[in-house]
C-alpha cells in the first residue's frame, strides 16, 4: 500500500538551515546535510528545502548545499525558493535535487510550469500554493504571502496540474503557525479537483493533527517545519502513532 509521506521542511539562508518564526530574528542552527540526514534516519520520507537567501548572487553560493545534501541523503528531496527560470530549475536539478518547488514565479509566468514539466517530467515539478481564506473564497497569495493575487486557489490548483505540475503543496495561511491542525476543508476541496499527489502544509501542532488529517482526507503528504525543528514531535513517534491508527506509513528500520 502506498504510504502517506512525512515531509519536514527546512528553511535555508546563505547555505545554513535557519529557524525562527517570520517575526523573529533568524538564528543560525545547522548544516542542511547534517539536519537532513538526522531527519532521514528518524524516518522522514522526503525533505523540502526552501532557500530564503535574499539576493540572486548570494543564492548561487547558498545553493551549494544541494550538492552536499544529494551526496549524503538517500531519500528524495525537493528544493524551492526564488526559482524563476528554466535555468534556475535546471541548476537545482543538476545539483542533485529530485524535485523543485515553484510558487510566485508560476503565478507571474504559468508557462514556466509547462516548459519545466515538458523538459524534466511532471514528477519533479511541484507547484506550491499559499492560500488564504478571504470571506467565503480561497485566494492565492504570492511573495511569501505578502501579495493578494485575487486568483481563486481552487482554479489555480487545477490550472497548475493542467500545465504539468506533478504535485501540489497547499499551504493554508490561516492555519500556518497556529498549531491548531491542518485546513481539512480546503484540502478536501483540492484533492477532489486534482489527480496528482497533494501535500498539506500549515497548522501541525501535535501528532493528533496528523491523525485527524489522515482520517479526514486523501492527502498524500504531510509537511511541517517547527514541530520537527523544536523536537515537539519526533518523526519516529509520529509514524508509530499513525501506524497504530491504521494509516499506512513507512517505518524506517
Amino acid at each position, binding site marked *: *500500500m502506498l504510504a502517506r*509521506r512525512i515531509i519536514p521542511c527546512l528553511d535555508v539562508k546563505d547555505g545554513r538551515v535557519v529557524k525562527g518564526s517570520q517575526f523573529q530574528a533568524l538564528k543560525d542552527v545547522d548544516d542542511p546535510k547534517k539536519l537532513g540526514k538526522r531527519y532521514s534516519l528518524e524516518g522522514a520520507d522526503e525533505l523540502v528545502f526552501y532557500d530564503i537567501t535574499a539576493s540572486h548572487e548570494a543564492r548561487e553560493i547558498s545553493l551549494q548545499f544541494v550538492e552536499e545534501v544529494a551526496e549524503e541523503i538517500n*531519500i*528524495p528531496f525537493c528544493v524551492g525558493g526564488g526559482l524563476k527560470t528554466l535555468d534556475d530549475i535546471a541548476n537545482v536539478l543538476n545539483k542533485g535535487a529530485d524535485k523543485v518547488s515553484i510558487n510566485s514565479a508560476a503565478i507571474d509566468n504559468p508557462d514556466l510550469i509547462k516548459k519545466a514539466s515538458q523538459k*524534466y*517530467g511532471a514528477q519533479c515539478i511541484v507547484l506550491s500554493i499559499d492560500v488564504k481564506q478571504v470571506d467565503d473564497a480561497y485566494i492565492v497569495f504570492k511573495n511569501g504571502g505578502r501579495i493578494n493575487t485575487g486568483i481563486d486557489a481552487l482554479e489555480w490548483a487545477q490550472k497548475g496540474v493542467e500545465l504539468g505540475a506533478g504535485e501540489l503543496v497547499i499551504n493554508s495561511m490561516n492555519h500556518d503557525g497556529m498549531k491548531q491542525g491542518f485546513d481539512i476543508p480546503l484540502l478536501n476541496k483540492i484533492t477532489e479537483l486534482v489527480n496528482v*499527489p497533494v501535500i498539506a502544509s500549515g497548522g501541525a501542532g501535535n501528532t493528533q493533527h496528523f491523525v485527524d488529517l489522515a482520517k479526514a482526507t486523501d492527502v498524500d*503528504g504531510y509537511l511541517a517545519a517547527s514541530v520537527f525543528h523544536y523536537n515537539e514531535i519526533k518523526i519516529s513517534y509520529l509514524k508509530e502513532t499513525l501506524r497504530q491508527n491504521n494509516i499506512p506509513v*513507512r517505518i524506517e528500520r
Partner: protein
Amino acid sequence: MNVIIDYKVGNIGSISRGLTRAGIDAKISANPEDIKQAEILFLPGVGAFKDAMEDLVKTGLVPLINDHVTQGKLLVGICLGMQLLFDSSTEYGHTKGLGYIPGEVVYLDIEKKVPHMGWNQLMFNQDNHTLKYINENDYVYFVHSYYANTAPDNVVAYTDYDINIPAIVRRDNVIGMQFHPEKSGQVGLQLLKAIKEMTS
C-alpha cells in the same frame, strides 16, 4: 570494475552516489573498453522509453551489452533502465527494447493517481539473492507511469497499486528494479549491498 552506462539520461549522478553509499565502486562510462571489462553493468534511466532507447542505441553500446549478458555477467536496470530490459514498450507508439526479459511495458491504466509516486511495499514472489537483507513489506520509493507486464516467472517482487506491479524482475543474470534503490533509504542500501555480493 563496475560501470554505469552513460547515455545522457538525467539521473546518473544520483545512481552513482547511491552506489557509492552502498559500497559499490562504479565508473560512469560510455567507453567500449570499460563496458567490455565491467563486472556489473548498471543501466540507469528516467524519462520516456522511446527517447532513452534511441539514445542508448546511438552510443553503439547495445552489442557490447548483449555480449555482457551472454557471458553471464550481471546487468542491473534501474527505473526506466529496468523497463528497457523488456521486449518493447507502448509509450509513444511501439518501441523495441533490449529484449532480455520477455514482456511489454505498458501504461498504468488504473483508478489510482498516475504516476505511481511515493513509498510502496515489496511483496516477495520468488527467492532471490537481492532480497537477502530486506524483509517482505519493506518500503521502497517509486516514480513511474508505465509498468512491465511480464510472467510471474520473471518477477522477484511485486508492489500493490490497484494491480500487482512488478517491482524487482530478473531473468538469469539480468535484474531490474522499477523503483529507485538509491532513493529508498536503508532498504535501498540493503538491496544494493545484496547486488554487490552477486558478482563472481
